[in-house]
């Protein structure tokens, strides 16, 4: 393998890895990773991951097994990415009007770690294909073209895989009025909290919106029971449609509670903008947390219950 081929394999692999990381990095409503510092961190890490993946195949070709082993060791350092994200988000938690909750943070941190491995894998595919094609006697431009093509295919195949299901896939979402049984705030017959102040109750009746989420099956019911999942719904809903609350008004904190009998989950919120359809859409788009997913029907006992 010539020096040029080695360079092509490493450069193409690194570019493919960085490209894959950029492709999976979305700056959306969550503003996380935050622009531009957070973005810089993740692109840099993506480039490093890409380089690690890219060097592996040429290193083995040169019989540099020590180098290849060392690379495998370096790859484990990406576990730190998860710790870094978790730490950052936990530190920010106190400054959130409606906290994300630990389960959501853990989910986000895992996604960041996983995406670096995917960037590394894409780089590995690109550089390995360059090495293989050059061994088969392909011209240099053919090596590069095939490497780039396979990297692109890998990216496109992996992309949908890293996006999990959304709450809308698990439950039927519908609006419901907020009602009061004395001081007890209820939505669809489920008690959410005791609101002691008359004026707070009046504001709920005037501006509040209630949402009922009916699980589509036993698996969805078990998943939606997770407290972290419910907090994620409250957080995302209040991020998307806004929330009318100050720190000295804890009674306006959006809450998500569950009807233990039916498994239905309800949300009460005073949105910043009273747009019922937007709220429903926001709830549907909340990601299902990896840590919350339960699938009892995959077991024998679960099937018997169903």
């Amino acid at each position, binding site marked *: 393998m010539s020096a040029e081929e080695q360079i092509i394999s490493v450069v193409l692999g690194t570019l493919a890895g960085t490209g894959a990381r950029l492709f999976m990095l979305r700056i959306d409503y969550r503003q996380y990773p935050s622009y531009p510092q957070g973005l810089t961190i993740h692109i840099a890490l993506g480039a490093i991951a890409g380089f690690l993946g890219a060097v592996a195949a040429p290193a083995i070709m040169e019989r540099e097994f020590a180098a290849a082993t060392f690379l495998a060791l370096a790859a484990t350092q990406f576990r730190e990415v998860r710790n870094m994200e978790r730490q950052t988000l936990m530190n920010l938690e106190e400054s959130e009007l409606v906290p994300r909750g630990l389960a959501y943070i853990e989910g986000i941190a895992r996604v960041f770690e996983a995406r670096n491995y995917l960037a590394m894998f894409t780089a590995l595919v690109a550089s390995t294909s360059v090495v293989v094609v050059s061994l088969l006697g392909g011209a240099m431009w053919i090596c590069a073209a095939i490497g780039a093509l396979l990297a692109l295919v890998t990216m496109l195949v992996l992309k949908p895989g890293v996006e999990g299901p959304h709450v809308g896939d698990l439950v039927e979402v519908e609006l419901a009025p907020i009602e009061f049984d004395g001081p007890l705030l209820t939505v669809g017959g489920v008690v959410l909290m*005791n609101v002691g*102040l008359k*004026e707070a109750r009046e504001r709920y009746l005037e501006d509040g919106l209630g949402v009922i989420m009916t699980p589509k099956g036993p698996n969805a019911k078990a998943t939606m029971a997770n407290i972290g999942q419910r907090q994620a719904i409250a957080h995302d809903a209040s991020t998307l449609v806004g929330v009318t609350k100050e720190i000295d008004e804890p009674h306006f904190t959006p809450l998500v509670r569950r009807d233990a009998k039916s498994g239905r989950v309800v949300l009460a919120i005073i949105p910043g903008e009273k747009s019922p359809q937007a709220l429903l859409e926001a709830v549907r788009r909340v990601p299902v947390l990896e840590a919350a997913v339960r699938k009892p029907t995959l077991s024998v006992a679960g099937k018997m219950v169903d």
Partner: protein
Amino acid sequence: MQVDLTHAILAIVTGVSEEGSVEPGGTAPVFHVGDEEERERVAKYIGTVTLGSVHDLRNGTYLIVKH
């Protein structure tokens, strides 16, 4: 490290002390206010100051709780 008090009753606002009322508590100060409207106002103000939630027990008693 920040230490916070949570899940605790911070104050109790109730009617004028009479037979059958619970005294003197011990965990939280008890505010006796005769007038119903005035009682709600006191409960609201304590809630604002302590960042606690005001809960109504419907017997003229309000609890201010830190969640």
